[in-house]
């Protein structure tokens, strides 16, 4: 892991100075807070700003705390994942294109340290941000809708973190292998579109990394099938390791594409 700590220091400083360390967790925090609050106060919100005819009556379903947490996750799955894919698609590719990477590549650095320093900063920002957001959501859900089984919650959180690691690996791999534009497209396709395809056609299979957010919800509700879940987790972790190793390989292979 030669030079890893210096490279991580550089990544950290970059993300502090471009405020990613702040705004990405803030996005997750806002969604985390807004979901239970909006659901709880929706009748009052509609009554005050909805401009409804007098006497209109809405029947709102009773939502369980688990459903509120799942609703938070579904926000993360669209907007949150879009923020992650587009926010980090250039993490390697942009450095290469601008030429700033050239002065790193001529040092005796290990490309795996280089990629891992970026991986660690992405994990810290994205997974850290999501944990903060989900904890905020849990807090308000607990106050407004009731308690969630803590064991189930940690199972749910752990499963969702495995999914996030997979997403981060896809983005990192794409950025190492392609240009920023292509990396963004590939990441969006493999994170967002693949989820839709898995949701549409996924009844034919039960083992898939893209099913992890669904399994996370099932764990929270306490009704899930252990075998496909364990297989999905294993495949996700293996795929993430392969993607991270691939990112190291392509980072080294594409050194010649750095602007000189």
């Amino acid at each position, binding site marked *: 892991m030669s*030079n890893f700590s*210096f*490279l991580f*220091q*550089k990544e950290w*400083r*970059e993300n502090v*100075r*471009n405020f990613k360390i702040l705004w990405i967790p803030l996005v997750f925090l806002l969604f985390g807070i807004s979901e239970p609050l909006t659901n709880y106060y929706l009748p009052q919100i509609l009554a005050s700003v909805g401009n409804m005819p007098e006497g209109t009556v809405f029947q709102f379903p009773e939502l369980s705390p688990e459903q509120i947490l799942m609703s938070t996750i579904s926000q993360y799955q669209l907007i949150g994942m879009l923020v992650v894919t587009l926010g980090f698609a250039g993490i390697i590719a942009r450095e290469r294109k*601008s*030429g*700033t990477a*050239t*002065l*790193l*590549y*001529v*040092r*005796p*650095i290990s490309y795996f340290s280089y990629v891992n320093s970026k991986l660690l900063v992405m994990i810290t920002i994205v997974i850290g941000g999501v944990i903060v957001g989900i904890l905020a959501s849990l807090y308000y859900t607990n106050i407004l809708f009731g308690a969630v089984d803590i064991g189930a919650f940690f199972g749910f959180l752990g499963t969702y973190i495995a999914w996030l690691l997979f997403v981060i690996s896809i983005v990192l791999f794409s950025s190492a292998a392609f240009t920023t534009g292509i990396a963004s497209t590939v990441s969006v396709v493999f994170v967002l579109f693949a989820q839709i395809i898995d949701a549409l056609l996924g009844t034919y299979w039960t083992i898939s990394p893209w099913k992890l957010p669904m399994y996370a919800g099932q764990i929270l509700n306490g009704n899930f099938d252990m075998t496909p879940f364990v297989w999905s987790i294993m495949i996700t972790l293996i795929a993430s390791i392969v993607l991270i190793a691939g990112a190291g390989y392509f980072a080294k292979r594409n*050194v*010649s594409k*750095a*602007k*000189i």
Partner: protein
Amino acid sequence: MKTLLYMQGLTKEYGKEKAVDNITFSLNKNTSTALIGPNGAGKTTTLSMLAGLLKQTTGSIVMDGEDTKDIRKMIGFLPQYPQFYTWLTALEFTEMVAKLSGVEPKMAKLEAEKTLEFVGLGSAKNKKTGTFSGGMKQRLGLAQAIVHKPALLLLDEPVSALDPIGRREIMNLLKELQANTTILYSTHILNDAEEMTDQLLFLRKGKLVEQGSMREVREKYANPLYKMYFSSSEEAALFVEMSPWPTRQEGPVAFISIEDGKPKMQEVLLKLANSNLSLSKVERATASLEEIFLQVVNKG
């Protein structure tokens, strides 16, 4: 003199195109070598292979007697247009690259400060690199290349983007470095090469077409002209008039071509002795590097 680097048969192919074609040369320790050639000659490709940014298709690079796989520890590289992280200050950047190059972490800041002082950026060390002018960037580029005291300094057109004052300042810094560092630099500014070069390497279409010390190259491409200095332009004109040999005049100087000993210098001097012309000096006209460059790149 001890050899620092030896390249043998270095070739870089892009499909069927050969950007660098079977180049062999060596660099002696603490010498300065200029890679000269027109655009597209393969100068940057050669430097990039040495810097570890490109992998050669064939050939070997032996550094300091060892065929090491990673010679990046021993080199400092300055690209033609160095790009920096705009959100870092000059000191933060130089300290970071010092650490990445193997400088003891505790010493990295001190070394970075000393190096920035050396390149004249001492007062701007805490400014973000995004605010730097072209000249300052070039100085910072030099600082990052030398902060770890590399054995070999590779510079790609180090002064081509600078104004004459900036160029002079960077050249002076390089001359100072020359005492303890081996320098290989590409240039098309031939005055610079003339000023600071122990060895010249001429590249054309990826091939090494000429190499040698400044003296060797000058001798090889020596002009068969002799310059004869007279006391006035009129006298030089009279000599050209009376000369039976190919002769031309520029002010008080007459140029006479003596090739393969014809005419003999004695004959010329005898002719002069029989005239009333007063000759003050005779010297061989040396070819300028520009003339040599044109001859080398146009031959073949």
